[in-house]
């Protein structure tokens, strides 16, 4: 198993607020580590609206979700903070005065403070609420492709109309026996080029396309054997297959956070407004996931929360040191931490 990583603060969530927390911790001289369930940095800004303009960041009249993330990354660059992506914190345990947090990939952190900057929860694949689809999960039904080789010579049904569905249809058609692509309407959200590649594969009979159809059931014994689809006009068809891939995008789930004994109301974590600590000492919640009277789900509010929580994290990490309030314009320590030359 991997070694414990000891750090001053563990930040859960690599969205704008998590990234700015790294900055606020960093200028106080605290080391942090970041964990995020997505495969990229930026949280909702990068996943949901990378190209949409944001107009309410103080001092930035307009920026896109992605450019905000890029700028924040530049701002925290001096701290060289490790980012642990593609994993979420599964469990949390109090060890004396510290917290031991374990990720889904088995990485363990030991830290006095944890900032939960989890936004609206972790992004998880959207799964059809159909009993038999859930039953055959990992027995033929998948939502991602860690290893495409297992699809060699298989008959696959792919659901979806976006980039993931179309990219994988094109890619897997090179090795699969046959692919059925099922989408609920005629139009595809994927880039035009991939759509035309797919249409070419349909002409070559490598892919069978069912538009105006949706998944309604799955059938099998030990393993999945077929899926049922229903067309707009009510016709049901059964497609024999070895595997089903569902690309219906991502949704947000609080997930294991629900089980940590935190005060939670309407999918948000209750905190105080002095330092944004939760009901558990050393566990803080900042950004969209935090809830307190008057809370606004704005990025700027999250930045404020990060700054105040960092002050308390300092006291927990260095209980014997005095924390003096300093301005970044003139403080030598801050300049040194930012790697500025005199």
């Amino acid at each position, binding site marked *: 198993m991997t070694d414990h990583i000891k750090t001053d603060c563990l930040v859960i969530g690599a969205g704008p607020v998590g990234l700015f927390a790294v900055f606020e911790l960093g200028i106080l001289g605290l080391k942090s580590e970041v964990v995020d369930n997505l495969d990229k940095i930026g949280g909702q800004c990068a996943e*949901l*609206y990378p190209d949409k303009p944001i107009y309410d960041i103080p001092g930035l009249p307009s920026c896109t979700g992605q450019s905000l993330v890029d700028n924040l990354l530049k701002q925290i660059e001096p701290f060289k903070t490790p980012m642990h992506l593609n994993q979420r914190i599964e469990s949390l345990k109090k060890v004396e005065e510290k917290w031991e947090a374990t990720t889904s990939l088995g990485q363990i952190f030991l830290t006095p403070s944890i900032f939960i900057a989890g936004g*609206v929860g972790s992004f998880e694949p*959207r*799964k*059809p*609420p159909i009993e038999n689809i859930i039953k055959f999960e990992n027995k033929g039904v998948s939502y991602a492709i860690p290893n495409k080789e297992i699809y060699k010579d298989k008959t696959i049904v792919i659901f*979806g*109309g*976006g980039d993931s569905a179309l990219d994988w249809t094109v890619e897997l058609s090179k090795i699969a026996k046959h692919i059925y692509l099922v*989408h*609920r*309407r005629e*139009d595809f*959200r994927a880039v035009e080029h991939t759509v035309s590649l797919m249409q070419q594969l349909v002409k070559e009979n490598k892919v069978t396309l069912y538009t105006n159809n*949706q998944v309604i059931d799955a059938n099998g014994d030990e393993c999945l054997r077929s899926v049922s689809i229903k067309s*707009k006009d009510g016709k049901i068809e059964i497609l024999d297959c070895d595997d089903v891939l569902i690309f*219906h*995008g991502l*949704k*947000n789930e609080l997930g294991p956070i629900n089980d940590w004994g935190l005060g939670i109301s309407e*999918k948000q974590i209750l905190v105080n407004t002095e330092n944004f600590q939760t009901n558990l000492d050393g566990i803080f919640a900042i950004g969209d996931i935090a809830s307190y009277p008057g809370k606004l*789900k704005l990025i700027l509010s999250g930045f404020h929360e990060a700054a105040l929580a960092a002050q308390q994290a300092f006291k927990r990490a260095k209980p014997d040191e005095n924390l003096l309030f300093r301005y970044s314009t003139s403080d030598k320590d801050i300049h040194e931490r930012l790697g500025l030359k005199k």
Partner: protein
Amino acid sequence: MAIIKFIEHSGTEHEIDIPNGLTIMEGATKNKVPGIDADCGGACACATCHVYINEKWIEKIPQKEDSEEDMLDFAFEVKDNSRLSCQITVNDELEGLVVNIPEKQF
């Protein structure tokens, strides 16, 4: 202002008085109508405020934009009268609108 009737999948009805300018989703969630989750809070980014518009009303409601149609790909049991309730803003014309709530949101 319009009184809008929400019918749950079980048949339970809720008549909600929604002020002009709010979306149907906001009216429903503020009044805790079950079955409208609205995870993303109205950003047209999640498809968990999916409703079916009563047939008589479809033409009286402004048409879907592309972003809503795209997002409906992620809803469960989408039909021709499917809409995302966060994309419909209430005005006086909607007085008496009837929407059905699907059995499940994704």
